């Protein structure tokens, strides 16, 4: 089959369509705008909806309303927009509204550099909402990942009724690459688990074998309540400490206990050796080039490219790091995910290489950090 010359943002759009997305809303912002452009091409002619909100808060709000009406919704922005999304993200977390959020990261802080890349929002995506409850964050390192991980993001948002971030970067989203989309193996498309509309319905009641409530849409025959307030299973406000605690613990457990079933990664190089480079996103490409050169020179270094960043796939990281003398975390910021690695590998030597100047980390720099670290 033939190959296409696509940028990451276009692949995100096509991935969303393949996953059944039928609602998109966004506000123009470089470097995420081409996701909006793509969705505007894809959705309205097919009966879906693509809206441009008056601001980011409205855009994500439209998505939350549409998702509660049963649509598969996605929005896309960059750091300044994620800042404005914050309270709505908290709503989606606490009230279990499925939503895919594409964050095409650019160099911050604040408005920063609109046309320069960075991975500066890695902790922000995890902790940038009130309550500290978890979210899922997936990080693509190439155009094929943009397609596949966007599909997976929808599946996870639907399965766990939660916001899922696709943590892209200007350097992937706006870089064109030859890719054969037909050669990829897309995941099976999953919809949210629905309740029996003929039985009594409590909007936040959890079935015995699950930690996620069954869904019914606003607008169906059965009346549905949704609320951003602390609620019990009936969707009405509650002040009962026991009910509150049970719900809070469930919100945490439904993602953190399940991370093994959505731990996506790519390991390159030997299974054991000197240095295991832990990285993600566009930097994984430079790390793979570095490792290939190091291996040719006889250095037994390897790369673990984490495509699931949050919840932290702790079991994978612990398991894969055992056979290496040392860990080197490489990321396009001044030290964010390395904190997690230091936390879960307290007895391991963990080195760090980070850079934040709007340019890619080079393979040569990684090679030097492995050799002289």
């Amino acid at each position, binding site marked *: 089959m033939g190959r*296409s010359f696509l940028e990451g943002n276009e692949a995100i759009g096509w991935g969303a369509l393949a996953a059944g997305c039928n609602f998109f809303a966004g506000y123009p912002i470089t470097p995420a705008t081409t996701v909006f452009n793509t969705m505007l091409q894809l959705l309205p*002619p097919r009966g879906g909806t693509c809206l441009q909100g008056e601001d980011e808060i409205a855009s994500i709000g439209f998505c939350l309303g549409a998702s509660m009406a049963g649509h598969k919704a996605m929005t896309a922005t960059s750091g300044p927009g994620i800042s404005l999304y914050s309270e709505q993200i908290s709503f989606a977390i606490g009230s279990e509204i499925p939503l895919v959020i594409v964050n095409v990261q650019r160099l911050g802080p604040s408005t920063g550099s609109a046309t320069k890349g960075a991975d500066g929002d890695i902790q922000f995506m995890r902790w940038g909402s009130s309550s500290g409850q978890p979210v899922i964050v997936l990080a693509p390192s190439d155009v094929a990942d943009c397609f596949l991980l966007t599909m997976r993001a929808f599946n996870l948002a639907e399965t766990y009724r939660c916001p899922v971030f696709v943590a892209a970067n200007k350097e992937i989203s706006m870089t064109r690459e030859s890719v054969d989309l037909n050669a990829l193996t897309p995941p099976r498309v999953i919809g949210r688990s629905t309740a029996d509309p003929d039985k009594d319905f409590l909007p936040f009641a959890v079935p015995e074998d699950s930690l996620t409530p069954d869904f019914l849409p606003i607008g169906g025959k059965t009346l549905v309540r949704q609320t951003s307030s602390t609620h019990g299973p009936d969707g009405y406000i509650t002040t009962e400490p026991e009910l509150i605690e049970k719900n809070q613990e469930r919100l945490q457990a439904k993602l953190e206990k399940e991370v093994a079933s959505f731990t996506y990664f790519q390991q390159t190089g030997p299974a054991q050796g000197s240095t295991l480079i832990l990285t993600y996103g566009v930097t994984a*490409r430079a790390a793979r080039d570095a490792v290939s050169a190091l291996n040719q020179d006889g250095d037994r270094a390897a790369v673990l490219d984490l495509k699931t960043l949050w919840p932290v796939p702790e079991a994978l990281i612990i398991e894969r790091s055992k056979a290496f003398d040392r860990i080197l975390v490489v990321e396009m910021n001044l030290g964010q995910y390395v904190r997690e690695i230091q936390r879960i590998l307290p007895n391991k030597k963990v080195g760090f290489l980070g850079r934040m100047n709007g340019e890619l980390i080079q393979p040569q720099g990684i090679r030097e950090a492995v050799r002289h670290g």
Partner: protein
Amino acid sequence: MDSLLNTHRPPVFCPGCAHDKVVRGLDKAFVNLDLSGDRIAIVSDIGCSGLFDTFFNTHALHGLHGRALTYATGIKMARPDLKVVVTMGDGGLGIGGAHVLSACRRNLDLTLLVLNNFNYGMTGGQCSSTTPPGAQVGSGFLNRLERPLEICEVAGGAGAPFVRRLSSYDPELVAVIQEALEFDGFSLLDIRGLCPGRYTKRNKQTPKDIQAELDRLPDLSFYQQQNARAEYGSHYRQEAGRLQAAEAPLQIETSCTPPGSGRQEVVILGSAGQRIVTAGELLGLAGMSAGLHATQKNDYPITVMKGHSISECILSSEAIGYTGLDAPSVVLALGPEGAAKRKRMLKELPSASLVLKAAGIELPECKARIAELDFKALQVKSQDFALASLALLAGANRVLNLDMLKAALHFRFKGKALEGSLALVERIASQESPAFS
């Protein structure tokens, strides 16, 4: 149809609160319109108006302060058959002002009830966007400094076709709510009433005062005609229905043979308007037509028709990892802004690199071979410098060949643009260029 009031959760407003009248008025309007609960979604804001959704047996969504209209918009676009009612107070009106204005401009079929009681009841009676400057409120002197918002005038000015202001005690309340619900478009009711819990504790205000103030204000009925137009949702679906579904991404089969193997890095340095990014795309497509892997990474500032434009392309017979450039084999220096941005790269070029530069472009000292192109003599305009440079490379079988470039033009262009670019490429590629002698 029976009342839709939730008998298990009766209103919990302060005795004498005007909101109670609106709850009952809204219910009567639902009954009169014979609406069942499953055909209605009530979207409520924060504050006392945010309790509305709990008093009714309807679909309900209670969200964040000021954002009720955003959720309502999503619900209505997803489910055009639902009656979507939004309740917010004068607090939500202020904090969500951008959404109110946009809802007016959009004219999506939503009914917005503004429960206007001139202060923030729930948080302690602070001033809101509608508090009169003479009132005693929980914000000290601050309300004396601001002018209250006449939301109906603003909404009418922003394009809302149905705007009414009325008292919660108006005998016409039910009829007006009913009319708003039936209106096919955005309707906004400024419903004024007493807040006995906070506002009237420190300010003398009676239903008669409210009515007297309303009687004093100018008539707004002309907005209905002035702003009459298609409802947003039906208009959206009508426009969308005319669109053709976008074609799947173009698929490129290998049809040519590349001039060599290995990795080629090409940088095109130019200025905005020189079609640098298009040239980079053509180079990528050309490589793909010969079965090569390709990447294209662009760099340009936030300005549109000013500033540098740079395209960094890699063609390789091996899969491409790192998308930055190590040692460009060819640099096309076609515009001063682009060349100025990559001074360091130019200085460090190895001797094997070839730089093709347009006349007048200043380059730093470097080891690479530099050839100047006389585009004036070639009769090529600035916006075609990049394509002409690719044609020269193709003519000399450097990085790409003519078959590859022509294949790329066929992938990228149609009609006159294709004819014009093919003609330019044929003409330039056939020239003997001193650059490769």
